[in-house]
């Protein structure tokens, strides 16, 4: 809080002061102006005018600078990267606008968080439903087909080879259904924890995509809240999907390390990477969303020397310090 003057009075004072100085100079200095003006006198007047304008411009710019920053911030604000607030330097109309803007950001961010949480919860619930239907309904049907094939095998031994092949195909479909439903609903996660779930995820990923996976999981990791574990799992899953779809990688490293009161997930591929900032579609947006909701810090950046490096740091249960600026 520098001066309690309002912007109006500050601008007024700047102009009044400058004009006053000019008037005083004209009144009390020995400068005289002859009727046909002499070059020196003209020069003094022009210089004085330029000086006044420069001072005026500078002072006005300082007075109005916060407005410019406010406008800039309003244009660039991103609710998925919360925590940015403008500093209040003075006590005037502009800072009242700044305060109101900061409050509006508070409100928007908390609403954003709530609606994000609702959407993710609904999404998870829907996935659980689909996984159950897949497993129960389609699984039942396939089991039925297997039984029928078995019966057929006994009745028509001359077709044994073809029937065995058909059974094999049905079993593959069964495995596929199981894989998709475990992708939709990571039961491993609830039953055996994050490390087992990620081990399974990466094993399946390596088998399906043909990309080599290197796992580096720290032996003992701090405890995470269930919703945090789910977020880490989903973000790893989404990162791996992106590696398979965009990276043209030959290897990907998936690491789970102990941080300071935190756990760090890293998914680093050696693929083609991206230039500058990637366009963020559904995948990256939902990764940010999940990170935001659990107070994690998520960085998606080029890896050295090539590829993409996804780093997610999430607070452990006993964490005292929040990670990053997430509040």
């Amino acid at each position, binding site marked *: 809080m520098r001066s309690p003057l309002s912007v109006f009075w500050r601008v007024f004072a700047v102009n009044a002061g400058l004009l006053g100085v000019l008037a005083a100079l004209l009144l009390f200095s020995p400068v005289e102006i002859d009727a046909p003006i002499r070059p020196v006198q003209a020069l003094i007047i022009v210089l004085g005018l330029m000086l006044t304008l420069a001072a005026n411009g500078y002072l006005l*710019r*300082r007075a109005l*600078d916060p407005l410019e920053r406010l406008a*800039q*911030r309003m244009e*660039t604000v991103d609710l998925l*990267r919360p*925590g*940015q*607030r*403008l*500093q209040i330097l003075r006590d005037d109309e502009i800072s009242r606008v700044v305060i109101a803007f900061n409050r509006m950001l508070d409100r928007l961010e908390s609403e954003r968080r709530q609606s994000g949480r609702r959407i993710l919860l609904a999404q998870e619930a829907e996935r659980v439903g689909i996984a159950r239907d897949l497993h129960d309904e389609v699984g039942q049907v396939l089991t039925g087909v297997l039984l029928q094939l078995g019966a057929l095998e006994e009745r028509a031994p001359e077709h044994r080879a073809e029937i065995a092949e058909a059974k094999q195909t049905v079993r593959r479909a069964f495995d596929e259904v199981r894989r998709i439903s475990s992708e939709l609903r990571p039961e491993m996660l609830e039953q055996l924890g994050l490390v087992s779930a990620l081990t399974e995820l990466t094993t399946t990923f390596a088998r399906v995509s043909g990309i080599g996976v290197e796992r580096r999981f720290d032996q003992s990791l701090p405890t995470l809240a269930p919703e945090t574990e789910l977020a880490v799992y989903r973000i790893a899953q989404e990162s791996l999907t992106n590696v398979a779809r965009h990276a043209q990688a030959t290897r990907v490293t998936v690491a789970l390390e102990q*941080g*300071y009161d*935190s756990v760090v997930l890293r998914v680093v591929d050696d693929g083609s990477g991206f230039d*500058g*900032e990637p366009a963020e579609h559904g995948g990256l947006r939902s990764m940010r969303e999940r990170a935001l909701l659990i107070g994690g*810090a*998520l*960085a*998606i*950046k*080029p890896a*050295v020397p090539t590829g993409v*490096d996804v*780093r997610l*740091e999430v607070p452990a249960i006993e964490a005292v310090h929040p*990670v*990053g*600026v*997430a509040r």
Partner: protein
Amino acid sequence: MTDDDDGRAALATAIALSERLDLRLVLAYVRDGIPARRLARLAAEHGVGDRAEQRSGTGDPAMLIGRIAAEEGADLIVVGARARGRLRRGLDGRLADQLGSETPVPVLIAPALTSG
């Protein structure tokens, strides 16, 4: 890192700190329009080419650094003493001051190098 001299001062300080405290080092190069290659070269010059993680971007330096610090879960930001934010903010443009309103992460100001 922004200016060359300042960037080097900040880089040297950050490297020393990260070595002594065993901290992760993330280098950020946020001056308008300068390619990421330069960051890689600077990192290599200081012998941290494969240890330091590298981020670069274009836009308002203070805002970008604040954002990167948040994404990386940074514990500390190191900037050069005379590093500037937006030039057109003139005398108010000291990056370290601007960072105050951009991020809750503590900012360390590295003094200018006296030699080298």
